């Protein structure tokens, strides 16, 4: 088992604002157009003004973790690189938020990617910067580097063994925040948590990257120990729950998102314990994104109500047996 299946993705975000400009109530469309012009020179980027997108399309970008709900509320714009790894949000809480998302533990690489983006935008805009406080941001919790480095982690065993709270309080003492997967205030679904730095001032960018990486690595170790404890405590019961989860996913007619997320977590555990075999991990991860409400509707080509979604989701689950099979014994 590599850490990639516990650390699902890494994300680095830099908050930037224009000098001499109020943080709120500014028409951000010209900023977006200018940023788009600059970014075009370094790669394939496409601009998506929120006002030009259908609500379902907006939500699909949120489900893919490319943009935040706040960007939709503020009717800003997203400039997304063609490989979906880099996204520059214009007109969110700060004028400009540059972010890079990569799979697995790749915070350093994600930050390196952003350096080029930041340099390009620095050549286009004069950023609000202060000798003492660094990059000035709308919220005092982001001032300084304006940097948030986070990892998305799949931690079922820590949750199921009841050790997650102890782990969270340890992490919090190290100036890190633990949140549900869709950012601030959201509930953890499918045992997926986001760990990020709290401190942005009086610390360098590379220190932030290494501190989050260190914490993530330690949590991986704890999760692996918890997985050992979990199987030792009740091997037959755990195997039963894993196989039942797999059975239900492959043989259901209606399934809600929360039930799906819960069952797929056990299926992933089953793969870890070698009770199930997965031939295509990417297909599995992509399924988790595709069963989210907005993505599901767009996939079906129309807006679906709750029970229609449950039906469509269940039919999507039919494909699971093509890349996940039960191992003998």
């Amino acid at each position, binding site marked *: 088992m590599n850490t990639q299946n516990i650390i699902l993705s890494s994300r680095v975000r830099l908050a930037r*604002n224009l*000098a*001499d*400009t*109020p*943080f*709120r109530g500014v028409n951000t469309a010209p900023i977006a157009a200018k940023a788009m012009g600059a970014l075009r020179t370094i790669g394939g980027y496409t601009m998506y003004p929120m006002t030009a997108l259908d609500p379902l399309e907006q939500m699909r970008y949120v489900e893919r973790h490319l943009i935040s709900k706040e960007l939709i509320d503020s009717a800003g714009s997203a400039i997304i690189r063609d490989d979906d790894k880099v996204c520059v949000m214009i007109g969110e809480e700060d004028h400009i938020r540059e972010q890079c998302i990569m799979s697995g533990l790749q915070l350093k690489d994600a930050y390196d990617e952003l350096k080029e983006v930041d340099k390009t935008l*620095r050549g286009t805009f004069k*950023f*609000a*910067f*202060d*000798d*003492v*406080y*660094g*990059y*000035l941001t*709308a*919220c*005092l*919790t982001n*001032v*300084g*580097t304006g*940097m948030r480095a986070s990892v998305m982690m799949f931690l079922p065993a820590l949750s199921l063994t009841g050790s997650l709270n102890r782990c969270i309080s340890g992490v919090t003492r190290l*100036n890190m925040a633990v949140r549900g997967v869709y950012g601030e205030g959201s509930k953890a679904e499918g045992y997926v948590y986001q760990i990020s730095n709290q*401190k*942005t*001032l*009086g*610390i*360098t*960018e590379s220190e932030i990257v290494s501190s989050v990486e260190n914490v993530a690595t330690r949590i991986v170790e704890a999760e692996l120990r918890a997985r050992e404890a979990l199987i030792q405590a009740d091997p037959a019961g755990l195997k039963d729950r894993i196989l039942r989860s797999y059975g239900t996913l492959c043989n259901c007619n209606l399934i809600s998102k929360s039930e799906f997320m819960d069952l797929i977590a056990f299926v992933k555990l089953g793969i870890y314990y070698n009770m199930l075999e997965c031939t295509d991990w990417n297909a599995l991860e992509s399924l988790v994104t595709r069963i989210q409400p907005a993505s599901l509707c767009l996939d079906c080509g129309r807006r679906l109500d709750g029970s229609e979604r449950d039906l469509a989701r269940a039919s999507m689950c039919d494909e699971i047996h093509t890349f996940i099979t039960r191992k003998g014994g």
Partner: protein
Amino acid sequence: MLCQKCKKREATGYMEKTVGGVKTRVYVCPECFKQAQLEMFSSLDDFGLFSGLAGSQNTRVKCPKCGTTLREITESCFVGCPYCYTELAEHIKPIIRNVQSAAMHIGSRPDDAPNNAEIADLEERLSRAVASENYEQAYKLKERIRQLKGGKQ
């Protein structure tokens, strides 16, 4: 001894409180102690945490550039414009120190130029380290200053 808070139950312990620089002991019963702890805990939410720092004048003070009041800032942790940082510097400084446990940016800069504020701070610490004959610390500080001034290692 009677609890000094409720003046009803027997005091079993004390809490220390600093008023105007003078430390005083308040003898309390377990009930009042629990109550005080809870009050202290509930005041640790965002609002209490920030507003306590800015004092009572925060209703009138506001940024001359954007009009955001200090009260709005202490309650939400959001400032209105880049000038809030300089115009309301004396009020914002303790809030930032509290939120970030730091007072100065040491990360990258838009112009890739040396950070003068940090160098000045390090030089001050260097002279203190030399004065107290802490040469190991002085060496480290000197190296860091050299790095910052040279821009590279």
